[in-house]
Each structure stands twice: as C-alpha cells, then as structure tokens.
C-alpha cells in the first residue's frame, strides 16, 4: 500500500505534476512534520487515558491496597496467591467459560442463519431487520433492566407460566442459584443475536450471486447453499465476528451481572469481569481486583488471538 503510493509520486509524468522533484522533497519533509503534529494530540490522549491506565493494572496487582483513599503498599505476588486459593475466583472462571461457551455456540450459528435469511429478501425482511437491530440501540444497563422486569417473581415469564397452567415452573429467576447464570446468558443472547445477524447479512450481501448459481445447477438446497457455499466463503468474517462477540460478552458481563444478580445467589452468577468490579469497589480490595483484572486481560487477548487463528479463511 505504502510503496505503491510512493511509486506513483516518484514516477509521475512531469506534465501532470505541478511540482518539480526538488519541491516534492520539501513537501515530503513538511508533510512528515505535519502528520506528526496533527496526529500527536490524539495519540497522546489515547496513551495517557487508555494505554497507560490499562498497563498499570500489572503494577496495581502487586499492591496491597485496601480502598481508593487508603495508602498502597507493595505486596509482591500475594494477590495472585490469594486468587489461586480463592474458591470464588475458580467459580468465576468456570462461570465465565460457561457464559462464553454457551453464548458463542448459540449466537454464531443462529446469527449466521438469520443473516443468511435476511439476504434472501423474503417478505417482511425490512421489518425483521429493524427488529433485529433494536436491542443494539439499548445500553447494557437498559437491557438488564428490561429483563429485571420480565424475569421478576411477579413478572412476565412467571405470569405466562401460571396462565397456561405451568405455574409449577415459576421461580424467582434472578434469585435461584440454578437459573441466575442462565439469566445473564439470556440477556447476552437477546442483546447480541439480532445485531450479529445484521453483521452477517451485510457481509453476505457482497457475496457474488454466481457462486450460488453454480451450486444451484448442482441441485443444492437452500440449507446446503447456506452451509456449504456461504459459510466457507465468509469464514474469515465469521472469525472476526466471533472474536468481537467474545470480547463484548467477556467484558460486558460486569454490567449485566451487577444490575441483575450482583453475582449471586452466593457466587453462582459471578463472572470474572464482575469480580474485578466487585473486589475493587464493593470489597475495597484494589490490588486483588487488579490481579484478577490481569488474568482477565490476558485471557481476553489470548482468546481473541486464538479465535482469530482457528477461524480463518481457508483459501
């Protein structure tokens, strides 16, 4: 990309260029200075308010820091030792893995099929598109509050159950240790599937129709076309979307869990990102919170890289 652009400048026919080669050089060095000057404020801003804070979690994780306004002392790796011995941490690890595993395993195939369906332009596809898009407009907190009502002890779900004679299935969804984590996953799925489908539809719209026509001549059904033609063609894109959702779910669950269950009952719905928040601001154990934060950050990074590597375009 870069070399092509330079190539063009250096070999431009003199008749087309209003500048002589000598002047071109001075423009180039002036240009370099201008780029630096124009880009520097944004870069510095980003470094000061994002990169440095994010990097400092590694330092904070080595401190004993009992609260925002309390003095911090060096503690070595004791926070990590505490973490390994903390059963809540291991519950959070397991819950996070379950949340990610179930969410992605449901969300990606379902969204892909819905996205493919949208590209067929069946009657009503415009209405569906708006419907699918709606949850993406809501904040994480609004999504959580919507389900706070729907799943309340006297809310919609239990109301419908008693209406159709299944009152025995009624349960306080948010306060039941067997359903609390499922509730978090339901909110993730409700909020994520529709928008992910729109993303797939956007990508599938640019797939050349000839590819499908060839498959049709071979007598392929819609189902076969979807999985054996469309899926391999956009495989790399599926990887990118999976990676994005992985990160959104992993870090977004702090808000959902905080508003719906506060990690409870017990620690049945505690996820890693919620634990980072909870240890820092509720338990006032900042060093410990940041040790978990380091694990979360590294897990997030490795997870994204692993997904990117394993779901690649095959040709």
């Amino acid at each position: 990309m870069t070399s092509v652009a330079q190539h063009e400048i250096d070999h431009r026919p003199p008749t087309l260029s209003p500048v002589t080669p000598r002047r071109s050089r001075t423009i180039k060095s002036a240009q370099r200075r201008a780029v630096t000057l124009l880009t520097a404020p944004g870069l510095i801003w980003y470094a000061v308010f994002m990169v440095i804070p994010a990097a400092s979690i590694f330092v904070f994780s080595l401190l004993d820091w009992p609260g925002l306004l309390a003095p911090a002392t060096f503690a070595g790796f004791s926070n990590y030792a505490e973490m390994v011995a903390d059963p809540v941490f291991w519950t959070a690890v397991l819950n996070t893995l379950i949340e990610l595993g179930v969410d992605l395993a449901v969300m990606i195939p379902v969204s892909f099929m819905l996205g493919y369906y949208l590209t067929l332009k069946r009657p009503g596809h415009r209405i569906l598109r708006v419907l699918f898009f709606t949850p993406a407009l809501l904040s994480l907190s609004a999504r959580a509050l919507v389900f706070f009502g729907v799943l309340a002890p006297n809310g919609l779900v239990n109301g419908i159950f008693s209406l159709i004679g299944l009152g025995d299935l009624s349960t306080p969804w948010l306060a039941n240790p067997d359903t609390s984590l499922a509730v978090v996953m339901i909110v993730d799925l409700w909020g994520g599937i529709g928008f992910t489908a729109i993303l797939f539809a956007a990508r599938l719209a640019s797939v050349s129709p000839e590819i499908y026509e060839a498959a049709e001549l071979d007598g392929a059904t819609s189902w076969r076309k979807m999985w054996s033609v469309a899926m391999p063609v956009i495989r790399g894109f599926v990887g990118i979307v999976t990676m994005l959702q992985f990160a959104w779910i992993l870090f977004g669950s702090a808000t959902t869990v905080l508003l719906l269950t506060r990690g409870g009952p017990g620690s049945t719905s505690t996820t890693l990102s919620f634990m980072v928040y909870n240890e820092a601001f509720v338990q006032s154990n900042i060093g410990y919170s940041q040790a978990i934060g380091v694990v979360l950050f590294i897990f997030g990074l490795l997870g994204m890289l692993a997904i990117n590597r394993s779901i690649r375009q095959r040709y």
Partner: protein
Amino acid sequence: MAYRTRHKPKALVVVADSLVWLYGLIILIPVYYLIVTSLKTNTEIFSAPAALPTHAALDNFINAANFASLPQALINSSVITIGAELVTLGLAIPAAYGLSRTDGKIGAALERVFSAGFLIPAFAALVPTVILAVNLNLFYNPIFLVIFYPATQLPLSVVLLTQYMRSIPKELEESSMMDGANRWTVLWRIYTPLIVPGLVSVALLNFLTFWNEYLFSLSILGTDTAVRTVQVAVPALIGQQTTNYGILAAGCIISIIPVLVVYLLLQRQMENALVAGALKG
C-alpha cells in the same frame, strides 16, 4: 434464487420463515412488556403481566422523572455526551487527515497503533481510570468523563475517518495549497465538508457509546443526583425491598428516547455506522 423460492415455497422455506419470525417475536416480547408495564401499576402488572393497560396513564413517567431526578440526569448525560463528542472529533479529524495524507513509515506505524486499539478493551482500564480521576481531583466531576470518554473511541474514530479521507484525491489538497491555503484551512474548509457522511457515522457511533455507557459513569460520578448520568439514575428506581416495576419501565423508556429519536431521524446512517464500527474496530 430468492425469486424462485417465492413462487414455489417448499416446506423447508415455510419452516425457515416461521422460525425467523419466532425469533423476531422473542426480540419483540420484552420490548412490548417494557412498554405495557410502563403504563400500569404494580397491582395490574402482577395480576396480568402480559395484558394491555386498561388506561393510558402517564403517572409512572412523571413519578420516574421525580423519584430519580431524571431531568437533571438527562442534562448531565447530554452535557457529557456532547462534550466528549466534540473532544473526540477535535482530536480524531486532524489525526485522520494527517494519516490519510502520508505515505511514510511513521504514518503507517501510527495507523497500526490506532488499528490495534480494539485489543485494549476500555474495561481493562476501569480501576486505574477511577484512581486517575481521584488523583486529578476530578472524582465525582463530569469533566473527567468528557476528558476520558474520547480515549475509548479515538482508535475507531481515527481509523474510520482515515478511510473516508483517503477517498479524497490528493490533487485537491495540492491545488488548494497552490492557491495559498494553509494546511489548517485545507483540513477544516475543504476536507471536513467532503467527508460529512463518514463524519456523521463516526459521530453517531460515539454518541451511542457515550450516552449508553454505564460502568465508568457509575464508578467515577457515583449516584449523587446532581452529577449522575441517566444510565446510572434509572437503575436507582430499583427498590431495596420492593420495586415499582411500572415506574422502573417508564424511567428506562425515558433513558432510551434520545437514542430512539436519533435512530428514527437517521435510521440508515445509524445502521451503517454500527456495522462499520463493529467491523473496522
């Protein structure tokens, strides 16, 4: 392909139609419930959760606004969102212009830095950011969010704007500079007007992110009614013992209205912005 199936619907297509619309219904039901709940009392909600309201009373909306000081929260959210938006664009437009006009190694390296921004999720910086606010004496101060929020959206804004700016021919810049315009004039008078559609996309994306942000705003501004944002104010309607679900739903709807208005006005741009944002980030 699509046309043929329309003329000869096979069993599989009918099944697909039904399943897709069933999913549409699953999305719609909670939204429907939010709206009907906002017009009912707790007694009405508990006795018939799914039923339509018997009368359209706006009491819940008035109560929600009063109990959670929503007018103040809406003002706070607006000021923070607009302020952060201006800072973001003020930093991102020149940066994107600089990056789009360079062929050098430095430019390419800088662009990679911004492109890699998605690898650092804002959440990772939550606790250090709160500590930074405390040390800058800006804890509980909305100004901190105006300064901080742009950092979360800068990489994406710069990357997207750089792409839009690249599509403007270089000759335009050269001829303007020949006419005696300086770089600053070229940027704001010639380039910026030309990328308005792209700029709208980026601005919408930032608006949605800033308006909807919850965790940083809760941790840094807290729940004091004078400074809290609308995202923090609405959950305050959840009661310690019992919750008035009608009032909570009404508050929730009030917090969504600004986004809804922008969406209705700029539906296409909003959808394109969100798709572009997800894929370029």
